[in-house]
């Protein structure tokens, strides 16, 4: 099973992070990366070099909010949580993506 290079993921990293966080709990960066890999059955691998700048960018954009809290192994970690604005952004990006994916699939199928 091949792995998708992180550049190809980059465009949709925001979408994935928002979708993961939309499940409700606040999570730290490592957990988010793990979750994406786990749910994609290791097809999508998230690089730290893009994940963290993206998290900080979304934090500044107001889509997610961060706070420092104790992790389960009692270390201080930065936890991210989705905001209302983030949910709106997610909805938009999600429908855009589904539309595009659908369209691409149709082209591939019919051409």
């Amino acid at each position: 099973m091949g792995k998708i290079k992180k550049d190809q993921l980059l465009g949709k990293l925001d979408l994935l992070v928002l979708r993961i966080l939309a499940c409700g709990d606040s999570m730290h960066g490592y957990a988010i990366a793990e979750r994406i890999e786990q749910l994609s059955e290791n097809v999508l691998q998230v690089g730290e070099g893009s994940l963290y700048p993206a998290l900080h960018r979304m934090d500044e954009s107001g889509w997610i909010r961060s706070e420092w809290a104790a992790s389960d192994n009692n270390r201080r970690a930065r936890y991210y949580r989705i905001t209302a604005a983030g949910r709106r952004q997610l909805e938009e990006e999600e429908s855009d993506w589904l539309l595009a994916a659908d369209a691409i699939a149709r082209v591939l199928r019919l051409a």
Partner: protein
Amino acid sequence: MALLRRFLNVLRPARLERELNEELEFHREMRLRHSQDRGLSAAEAEAEVRRRMGNLLVAKEEMRDERVVRWLASSLEDLRHGVVLLRRDPGVSSLIVLVLALGIGGNAAVFTLLKAAFLDPLPYRDAGRLVTVIENNGWIPTVSEFLEIRARTRTLERMAFAEHRDMQLSGTGEPARVFAARVTASFFPLLGVNAAQGRTFLEGENQQGRAPVVVLSDGFWRSRMGSDPAVIGHTLRLDGQLAVVVGVLPPGFHFDYPTLGIPEPVDLYVPYPIESSLPFERAANGQGVPVRVIGRLREGVSLAQAESDLWDTAVVLARENTSPFPGHPHDPAMFAFNVMMLRDAIVGSQRSLLWLLLGGVGVLLLIACANTAQLLLARSLRRAREIAIRSALGAGRLRLIRQFLLEGLVLACCGGAAGLLVARWIARILLNLLPVRSPLLASAHVDARAVGFTLAISMISAVVFAIVPAVKGSRWTPGPSLSAHFTAGEGNRWRHAMIAIEAALSMFLLCGAGLVAQNLWKLISAPLGFNPEHVLAMRLQLPFGKVEQPDPRAGVALQQYVDKIEAIPGVEAAATVTGPPLRPARGGGPVQLIGVADPGTMAWSHQISPDYFRTLGIPLLAGRAFRLGDAGPKLTVGIVNEEFAHHFGLGPNVVGKQIADPEGPINIVGLVGTVRTRRLETKPFPECYYSSLQMSWPNVYLVVRSPLPPGQLLKQVKAAIASVNPDQAVFGVQTMNELVANSVVEPRFDVYLIGVFALLAVAMAAAGMYSVISFLVSQRTSEIAIRMALGASRAAIVKTVLVTTSLWVVAGLAGGLGLGLAASKAIRSITNTEAAGSPAMYATVVLLFLAVTLLAAYLPARRATRLDPATALRCE
């Protein structure tokens, strides 16, 4: 909120760094644990994680960028860099800061003065609605005019007046003169002042015949009463009458503006005794007591409305008062009053001074900026290599320009901060130099607005002086900039443009100085009409009678003093006069000659003792002077000046004509030369002299002509007066020469002031030219050396060095001259003078400028011609 956090993050980069590290470190540890959980050894896990995560420096940079205000963060970086660079060159940097501190400090100081004059509230209640009522010829109303206005006004809600005079304080040791104001009871409530102890005056105390009361100023209470806490109820003997102290004013209160005709701080206040049935007296007729009238406009009333209200009053007064000339009813304009905002009246003639100051310091700051720009330009080009390297590493042009501007800003802020510190002192020094006491300007202080202004001009000057070096310095061309042989030929046109601007600005100031100086020269060279040498003038006031009524007995009493003084050996002549030249007493009115068709003219009048013309050296042109025999209870004789005769179309034959007077005709017995009575700059005015033995005020000037030294003379004069009346105080002693000099102190001060500014400007421009020419010469050393080696003459070398520069300087000079000519009208109007610049004055100014320029060019040019070609070329 997020923005605020990003701002804060700029200011605490260490904390941000720590957080980012912590977050990434947590991630690393989680990965490590995950690897170890899969059964890898510690070392293997470590290696795997390092492979997996790689180098996160770039990611961290991106995260940091997200978390800060990016432009601010990079600006701070540039700023830090700028400070380092400035400290590397401390000599030039501190020179720049010093020059800027003086330039900005000067502007800040003048701003505080302007602010005190035009912006800061006056220290009175509701001062924005306070006005003063004046006659349209600039004189002030009399008590009876005040009463008429107060009775009829519909636009002033409250009115008061003050009248200032010297009083004799006796009973406490030596008789002393105090300066007193006689005021209405409404005076203090109108200004919103309550007594610090006791009370101010009651309404009824303005009636005549009430027991005298007095309110002390804080200064008088402290210095003369020893801050006696139980002073209320004490009595003082004022002008021979016992007055009860009823109050002491608060320390901050003062109403003593020389521009309002109040020459010195007031010691004490007494109620003005207003006669119940006062005949209507016009100030212009020399009857009635002139008083300083103040009032408060009703809410929402404009100055124009108040003036038209007063015009209605004037129309009524003209109708109600019969004219002395039958068949010629009064013109209401004779009774017209103007209303002026109290603040404008207080600023008065100092307005012109303030604008001159502002112009001067403004131009100086601009020249300082131009010089700073020169220095920075030279430095920015010296930094070409650094710039080239930074550009090669990816710094954009705008980023580079911003860096230069920020460095300028650092300099300007240092200069501004230092300037703010010196602004106070500069303002103090200017105030001490001021020829006229100015309580309004003395209240100038540095406050938030002054700080804001200083900050603003610092910013503006930073942009002004840093923009050219920034734009020129940030440009680079890869090859030459990086080569070691780079010579700074860049920016010469800008250098020249800047010295042209400096030349224009300093030339502009020189033109202004020339104009003001020419005006002063015109004033002091105008014939006075009298001889001020060896004349001592002093004031005295007879300690008897009602001071506001003319009375021939006063003249007789004064003549006794004069006789004693004339008996002193060495005294050539002595006389009394109601007001000597340049210190005229008020007095005058419409005059008509019997048997002459002219309807009459306004003429000044003076009451003089017989030897007055001899004492002042005023030429008698026809007829005779007064004699001791010209005495009696009513006016019978008069002497007129040349302007008077001229007005009626008469020459010496004016002698023998008669002046119409309700009490009988007055014979004109003499004609004298015209004297500059009012001020040096005012036109001659028709004037009449009357014999003080027929009519005299009890407060007069005494003039004594004697070659004796003034101190010795004064002692003998005082002794002579004391032999007649030991209680007679003499004050206000001045030589006539001092009096003449005093009358031009303000124009003279203007000349010194703008002259100093102009010289500073020329010196700074010369320094700028010197540095530019030196720079150009050093730039072309090798070229000059080669040409000399090839046999070029010294003249040719000088021409090479100077020709471009002199073209620019001449262009600047022409520009400055044009500016000066264009501004001459403005300067004339703000200094309130007539003088137009003469071609000779402009020629002088241009020559002076050229001389200084030549001096600035001579040294570097000489250096160029003395160059030893061999040495110069070897150095290359």
